[in-house]
């Protein structure tokens, strides 16, 4: 039977499709391969996102790309549905059950006032009001021992209250459940035995780490999005099934991996940063293909810019993630595995404004998709970064948004003059100023992920993508002393492309405090074996057998009594030699990040197991050369203002016509559908065999001593 199936499939092309629902656009990448000839086809498409029925956009983009849904073998899908439900407060009516004495933890939070001179500061409002927060008698101590049995007597009353209030989702978070979840399990079972009117989600299902506020917040936010996300995924799946989809559907997660539909529906909160995660993963995978293991990934979208460091091919996954946190708000923690990135409010739509003291600022307010930049002509009055780029001749007003829109340059000019007045400078200088300030904000963010963690950006290659990445990257790379910049061939749909490169990935993070010596080794091994068996049997139960899976352990270590830890990779089974080997790696990593070492003992704070399962990825096709001459790709030339690098007459290339092995020098502009690449003077361009645009900054003397 199995052989027959394999043969049956072998007759047709292997088809991979990824779709990414972003705030503004829904992107698609399609890749097929003829298993006999190896002939491959790659195509991409983009349509408008369709809130609130996001699945419609997904079906639309497949239609636009002429995808035969029935032929798809694997489809991976990323969506903003979770982050949208959270930020727009459109989730389920949620209740919370905690240990006696701890229901207010959710509202108390950590007590911090980030905007500390603002005496009228308001705390973020809890997602569950106090009257829907309940308590049960029970206690498990920090060592995981039951010190007070779980009292279920009040449960009937609690359930009545929940039903009377039409609660749709219930979060359970008990004290020290990270150490021993038995009371959470018993409580959850007792509730589901009595009613099926709402979803029940326990903290230990999402997080096995300490800090009760963070875990409670995580559980509550997860419960809050559970019904809406689960329904969305079901609708999407049904929509596909109606079009005779018979392939595997995977869902993009925040940890740079995909997961099965079933798994994603159980804990949908893990999708919260899936868009940025797949882009950053795409950068890492691209690096593997073209042999660039050390990368700084930069994703500039409409509202924000995100960046992350990829060191030796590895992206860092942490559970130190918040939504809505800023200089002026404490935000909400979500303690799930999320790619370690820095995000700032600087994108193409970021609005430039002048404060009471005649200082120019850019962002974090964004014009969004509507009204959008002034140039859209949809009523936007405030100049944005995109408008400044147009005024400087970087973006072609005649080829705005891939030629789909005619830029309203008269309004752009007016908006810049509006800013110029109080500053007493020319509108051209305002446009330069906007770009320089936006760049400065982004350079500071890029330093946070590199220099600030002990990495010299000069040792890294930059990969820039997203709608605005290619416009700013060359200047940013120059500033940081980076020698090489890559704009991927699929830069405009890079999140969808990155998904195509993802494995199934599950991260298990466990707080496990222990001394690090011969005596504790057997206990740590025991705990590791337990974690490993749990995840392995989970994979096996889903038919992800050992030939498809790989595992990697990490330990989170710190000097005894310190708080923040460093992750060191561990062998599957520890032996006596591990004690010194791990200590040596810790010292080295610690020195790199913090510039000093101590003689103190190190201790283990937690374990991190990464399990991956291959979904059968297809190799990236190389692009063919047609023999086209470089001269045929030139659209003309125009004056372009490079801000700090002056004004230069620049050659304009049609990016959609460029082919592998073509080369030229800046100053130049490459216009392609979806993005514009700005090449500064003294920079050279070369297209590699995949049509990625490689920018060399050989004469770069920028950067600083890390």
């Amino acid at each position, binding site marked *: 039977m199995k052989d027959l199936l394999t043969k049956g499939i072998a007759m047709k092309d292997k088809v991979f499709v990824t779709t990414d629902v972003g705030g503004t656009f829904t992107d698609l990448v399609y890749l097929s391969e003829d298993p006999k000839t190896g002939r491959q086809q790659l195509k991409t498409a983009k349509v408008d996102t369709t809130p609130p029925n996001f699945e419609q956009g997904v079906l639309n983009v497949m239609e636009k790309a002429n995808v035969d849904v029935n032929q798809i073998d694997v489809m991976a899908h990323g969506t903003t549905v979770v982050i949208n439900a959270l930020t727009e407060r459109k989730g389920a009516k949620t209740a919370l059950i905690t240990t006696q*004495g*701890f*229901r*207010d933890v959710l*509202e*108390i939070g*950590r*007590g*911090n*006032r*980030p905007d*500390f*001179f*603002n*005496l*009228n500061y308001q*705390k973020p409002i809890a997602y569950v*009001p*106090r*009257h829907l927060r309940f308590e049960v008698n029970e206690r498990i*101590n*920090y*060592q995981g021992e039951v010190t007070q049995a779980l009292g279920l007597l009040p449960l009937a009353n609690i359930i009545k209250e929940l039903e009377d209030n039409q609660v749709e989702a219930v979060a359970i978070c008990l*004290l*020290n459940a990270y150490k021993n979840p038995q009371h959470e399990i018993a409580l959850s079972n007792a509730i589901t035995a009595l009613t099926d009117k709402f979803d029940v989600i326990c903290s230990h299902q999402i997080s096995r780490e*300490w*800090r*009760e506020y*963070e875990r409670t917040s995580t559980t509550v936010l997860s419960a809050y999005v559970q019904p809406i996300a689960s329904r969305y995924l079901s609708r999407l799946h049904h929509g596909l099934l109606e079009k005779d989809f018979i392939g595997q559907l995977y869902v993009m997660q925040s940890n740079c991996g995909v997961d099965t539909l079933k798994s994603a529906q159980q804990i949908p909160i893990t999708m919260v940063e899936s868009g940025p995660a797949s882009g950053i993963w795409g950068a890492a995978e691209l690096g593997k293909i073209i042999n660039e293991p050390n990368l700084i990934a930069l994703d500039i979208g409409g509202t924000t810019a995100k960046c992350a460091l990829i060191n030796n091919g590895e992206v860092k996954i942490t559970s130190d993630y918040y939504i809505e946190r800023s200089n002026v708000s404490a935000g909400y923690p979500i303690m799930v595995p999320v790619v370690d990135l820095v995000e700032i409010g600087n994108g193409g739509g970021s609005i430039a404004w002048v404060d*009471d*003291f*005649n*200082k*120019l600022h850019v962002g974090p307010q964004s014009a969004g998709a509507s009204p959008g930049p002034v140039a859209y002509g949809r009523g936007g009055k405030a100049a944005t970064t995109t408008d400044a780029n147009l005024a400087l001749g970087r973006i072609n007003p005649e080829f705005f948004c891939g030629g789909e829109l005619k830029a309203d340059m008269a309004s752009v000019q007016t908006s810049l003059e509006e800013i110029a007045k109080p500053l007493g*400078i020319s509108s051209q200088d305002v446009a*330069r100023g906007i770009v*320089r*300030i936006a760049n*400065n*904000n982004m350079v*500071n963010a890029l*330093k946070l992920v590199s220099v*600030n963690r002990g990495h010299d950006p000069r040792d890294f290659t930059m990969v820039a993508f997203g709608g605005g990445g290619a416009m700013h990257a060359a200047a940013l790379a120059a500033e940081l002393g980076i020698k090489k910049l890559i704009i991927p061939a699929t830069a405009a749909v890079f999140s969808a492309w990155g998904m195509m490169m993802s494995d199934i990935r599950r991260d298990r993070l466990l707080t496990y405090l222990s001394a690090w010596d011969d005596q504790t080794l057997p206990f740590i091994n025991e705990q590791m074996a337990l974690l490993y068996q749990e995840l392995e049997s989970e994979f096996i139960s889903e038919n992800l057998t050992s030939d498809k899976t790989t595992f990697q352990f990490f330990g989170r270590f710190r*000097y*005894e*009594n*310190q*708080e*923040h830890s460093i992750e060191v990779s561990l062998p599957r089974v520890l032996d006596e030699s591990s004690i010194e080997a791990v200590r040596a790696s810790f010292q080295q990593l610690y020195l790199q*990040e*913090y*510039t*000093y070492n*101590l003689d*103190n003992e190190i201790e283990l704070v937690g374990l991190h197991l990464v399990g991956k399962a291959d979904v059968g990825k297809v190799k990236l096709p190389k692009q063919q050369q047609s023999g086209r001459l470089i001269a045929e790709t030139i659209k003309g030339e125009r004056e372009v203002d490079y801000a*700090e690098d*002056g004004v230069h007459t620049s050659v304009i290339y049609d990016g959609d016509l460029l082919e592998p092995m073509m080369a030229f020098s800046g100053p130049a502009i490459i216009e392609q559908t979806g993005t514009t690449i700005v090449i500064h003077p003294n920079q050279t361009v070369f297209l590699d065999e995949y049509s990625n645009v490689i920018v060399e900054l050989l004469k770069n003397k*920028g950067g*600083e*001593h890390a």
Partner: protein
Amino acid sequence: MLNNDPITLEIIQNSLRSISDEMFYTIAKTAMSPIIYEVLDMATAITDPKGELASAGAGIPAFVGALDKSVKAIIAKFEPEQINDGDIFITNDPYYGGVTHLNDVVLIKPVFMEQEIIAWAVNIAHWNDVSGKSPGSMSVDATEIYQEGIRIPAVKLFVNDEPILSVFDMLTANSRMPDFLKGDLWAQISALRLGSKRILSLMNKYGKSTYIQAVDSYLELGQAMAEKAVKALPDGKYEINEAQDDGSHLFVSIEVAGTSLIIDLTQAPEQSALPINLSRDGTMLACQMALMGLIGDRQLANGGCFRVLDVKTRVGSIYDVREPGPCGIYFETMIRLNDLIWRCLAEKITDSLPSGNFSSICATIMGGKHPDTGQHYSIIEPEIGGWGAGDGFDGANAMFCAMHGDTFNCPAEIAETRYGVTVGQVALNDEDAGAGEFRGGKGVVIDYVIRSDNSFLTCAYTRNKIAPWGLNNGEDGSVNRVEVIRTNGAVEEYAMASEVSLDTDDIVRVITANGAGFGDPKKRKTASLIEDIRNGYVSLEYAKEHYGFSVMRGGSHE
């Protein structure tokens, strides 16, 4: 393109802020003590060559304008030729630029370019234990600074980028927790190294003169911002006199004259034999915080802002202590002074400030043997409490006081592991108080169940008898206190206490005040009141008595 155009200057100014922030996060990540990495009881700064504060990265507002004073103390103590590239200075002594108390240790590094000081990188962090008569180095009954720990009177710690080991040895020998001390010290050193490197690269990129111009214009901007805020206040002389927990009275006179804010504190109590004294620098901090509360902007706080302030103190008073007056519990005097200025502004001068809050650090120190590991532990924590309501909003529940900022409380799960105590509850304070059209926020009730004999509690709480003040007919809040509930059921109440002995199963119950209300309670919207009752923020009884709530209410007070 000119190098000193307004955009370039602004980019340098942004970068200065991000350098301060980077230094700050370096310490937060590497420090050994929870009071540093959780409470963020620390700050970083960059000053100009003269010690004027160019930018600050701080977890707590109290420290924003602290570090310029330490730099100025170094400049005053050392001859220019004694200050060299590769030096790091250290001080913790309020009589030598340490500003606050001996636990707060300041590290200072001059940044040189072409044999000239062009900036100072500086940071401050609270060390767990710097010796002295009590564990944790803060006792409420020290009578001289000598009892409070080792005095580090602005000395060199590094020369030529090499540590002076004898100073390190002296420091570690003078701590009950030398490992913590070493970790925290190196975290601060690491941040200074990063900061000075970053300042230099900024200067290399834009040139020395542009950099200096950017710093100067930044200070002018701070000044303009502060002048605007002060100018918005009506000119005049305003005075306030407030009774304190101990029966004494505190007095402040504020004069608004154009763009100047003159705070006269000369009519102050004599300096105390108790450790509640402020150095003049510490007093400046309280006044600067009040000023910044009027401005409200954290991003632009710099030395320029403080130029509008003129603070008058009297040597030998609690606001200008003479050596060897003890300063360990300086913070309660600082917050009392800050709150008093705030109250004077809110009651008499401006409508932009909310009513009174729990307004105390509520420093809670507990120590003993961890019942499972046998190791000595010490909990040193400020507490969170209820904030006052303002015009249009209820007071915030459970936040750190005005002296603290991006400070984090200690999770119960970490406290139980680290200290071996059992945390019985972390709840909002359900006592009724602070009624108003907009009601006061809730304080907290936290229970610590002690698990080993021979443990102790030290605490320093004010607002223990005199409750937070209401505004515009809003009612006062409740009061701060600590209860010790003995195993026989006896309840002892404390506010200022040193080394109260605790045994197994005694419960230490921290209770922090509910904030005051704003506006006439009778004007509170019925819908809001119904939600308050439903959520248990207001009891039905209290709603009837103070808000005039009745089932029939609806039209009568709307």
